[in-house]
């Protein structure tokens, strides 16, 4: 590490670890279809070079990544592991705040934390017991001076040059975000005013409480999952459960708003508000008028924010903040290969929820996750979709629902979120 970088670290900037290799630029010999962002070439879902470039440009680049909630690391020494793309990080609290460091010893590159959560006094690598304080600074190297005058580190070995790689950290009303980038703007600027305001609605500063986790490995490219949550069009057609119980319907008022040049996305619906004079059920072949639930609490919506809205926010590249009725969840997308993505769900409520509210959140959570009455449709469908893409890299998908533009729309019958994303994606990836 040179002097300039050390100064950056003291100023709270991301600090590349000593041995963190700078990836060589990846050149892609591919041509995007001439029609532009209304077409998506299928090679982007399966090409390993594209995947490597995405990890570097997006997850390792000028982005903020969700790594946890402050209530998950409540005490000095509490830590949790998180993943940012293919990089594992440790989120740990010390007396001054919350730090995020790479889970990678500066010595030989091995993992330091082997557990998802726990309490530590310092961060010590099990291999040669190099130990780091909770900020990631190297504080101890066993046998540094050798044994009986033999061996040991060279005399010019300087602990300060062998710290863990430190990430920039942002905290937003109980949530923790990290970045490998020195140049990405602050978190709220990165999100933009609309997304920040909508995130504040669900995280207004009330203390949060984790209700639990679900994790699943979906055998599809991460972008298929990413697009799926930007696509309200399918929501009214594939998801019988939504349609049947009036939670999400094509005749609800629905805002589909790509923000920050298509990077992020805010969608929100007012399920109680219907556009008049429409009977879209006739068009929804999966509508089941005969279905009744015995326990309606699973779908009964307590209007906690007084606006009747349900809201889903995508904070590029890997985070979703969701308020679906009374389910509050952070979803984290962790790409594992071009063909696999892990999805980590953190369900939470407010620390001052009463027993009734907690029960309602737990019951409604049946809609989401690997067994979710709604989410299950997506994980099943995306696997089938990805399987089909493998054999047709030169084919392309067609995304003109709602026109060819990228501006926000007030309708569900639109693919504007996907178009706006690919306009952004092409610029960032140089495609």
């Amino acid at each position, binding site marked *: 590490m040179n002097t300039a970088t050390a100064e950056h670290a003291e100023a709270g900037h991301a600090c590349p670890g000593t041995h963190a290799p700078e990836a060589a630029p990846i050149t892609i010999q591919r041509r995007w279809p001439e029609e532009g962002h209304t077409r998506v070439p299928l090679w982007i879902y399966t090409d390993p070079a594209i995947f490597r470039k995405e990890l570097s440009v997006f997850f390792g680049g000028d982005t903020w990544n969700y790594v946890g909630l402050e209530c998950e690391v409540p005490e000095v020494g509490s830590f949790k592991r998180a993943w940012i793309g293919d990089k594992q990080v440790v989120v740990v609290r010390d007396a001054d705040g919350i730090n995020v460091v790479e889970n990678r010893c500066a010595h030989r590159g091995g993992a330091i934390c082997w557990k998802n959560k726990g309490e530590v006094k310092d961060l010590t690598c099990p291999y040669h017991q190099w130990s780091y304080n909770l900020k990631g600074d190297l504080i101890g190297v066993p046998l540094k001076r050798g044994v009986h005058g033999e061996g040991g580190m060279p005399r010019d070995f300087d602990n300060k040059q062998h710290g863990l790689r430190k990430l920039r950290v942002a905290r937003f009303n109980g949530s923790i975000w990290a970045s490998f980038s020195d140049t990405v703007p602050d978190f709220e600027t990165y999100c933009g005013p609309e997304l920040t305001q909508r995130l504040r609605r669900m995280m207004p500063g009330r203390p949060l409480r984790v209700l639990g986790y679900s994790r699943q*490995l979906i055998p599809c490219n991460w972008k298929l999952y990413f697009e799926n949550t930007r696509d309200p069009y399918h929501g009214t057609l594939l998801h019988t459960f939504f349609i049947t119980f009036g939670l999400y319907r094509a005749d609800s008022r629905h805002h589909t708003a790509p923000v920050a040049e298509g990077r992020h996305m805010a969608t929100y619906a007012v399920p109680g508000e219907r556009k008049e004079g429409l009977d879209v059920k006739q068009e929804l072949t999966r509508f089941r008028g005969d279905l009744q639930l015995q326990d309606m609490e699973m779908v009964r919506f307590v209007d906690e924010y007084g606006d009747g809205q349900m809201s889903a926010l995508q904070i590029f590249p890997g985070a979703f903040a969701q308020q679906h009725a009374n389910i509050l969840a952070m979803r984290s997308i962790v790409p594992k290969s071009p063909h696999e993505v892990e999805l980590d769900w953190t369900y939470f409520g407010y620390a001052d929820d009463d027993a009734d509210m907690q029960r309602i959140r737990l019951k409604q959570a049946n809609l989401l996750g690997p067994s979710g009455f709604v989410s299950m449709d997506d994980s099943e469908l995306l696997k089938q979709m990805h399987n089909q893409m493998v054999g047709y890299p030169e084919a392309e998908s067609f995304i003109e629902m709602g026109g060819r533009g990228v501006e926000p729309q007030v309708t569900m019958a639109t693919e504007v979120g996907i178009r706006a994303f690919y306009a952004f994606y092409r610029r960032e990836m140089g495609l």
Partner: protein
Amino acid sequence: MITTLPPGLRDEIEQLHDDYAETVDRQDIEAWPQYFTEDCLYLVTSRENHDAGLPHGTIYCEGLAMVCDRAAATRDCTVFEPRYLRHFIGRVKVDAVDGDTVRARTPVLVVESVSDQAPHLLIVGAYHDVLRRTADGLRIKERRVVYDNFRIVNSLVFPV
């Protein structure tokens, strides 16, 4: 800790497990709720949640009504790839017997076979049960299916 079990109890629990597994593996989803009491709790959750005392369940049914809703919604409201599940249930460990109520834990392995791939391990874990003797025999008052696997491969479509 129990030194001697009431005669026939182990057989009775094993019979319940066998019938339950057979019903679920046959995907007879309408018959699945019959194993539960009216005031039941059915929860499928990760070891990660269970050990941390977190209440969330990947499947969370409080009361027989929700078990029936899960059955109906699985049958009528979801889209999924055809699959087979096969339960392998281990030896019962009875932890307590109190009147009509039995607490027991039983290892369980569920292997899933989908239409075009080799089978994979869906669940490896244990049933943490509270069983109650009723006029119809032993029924499940509480079943926490606690899975050791870190994550679910794609979807958990059917109850386990």
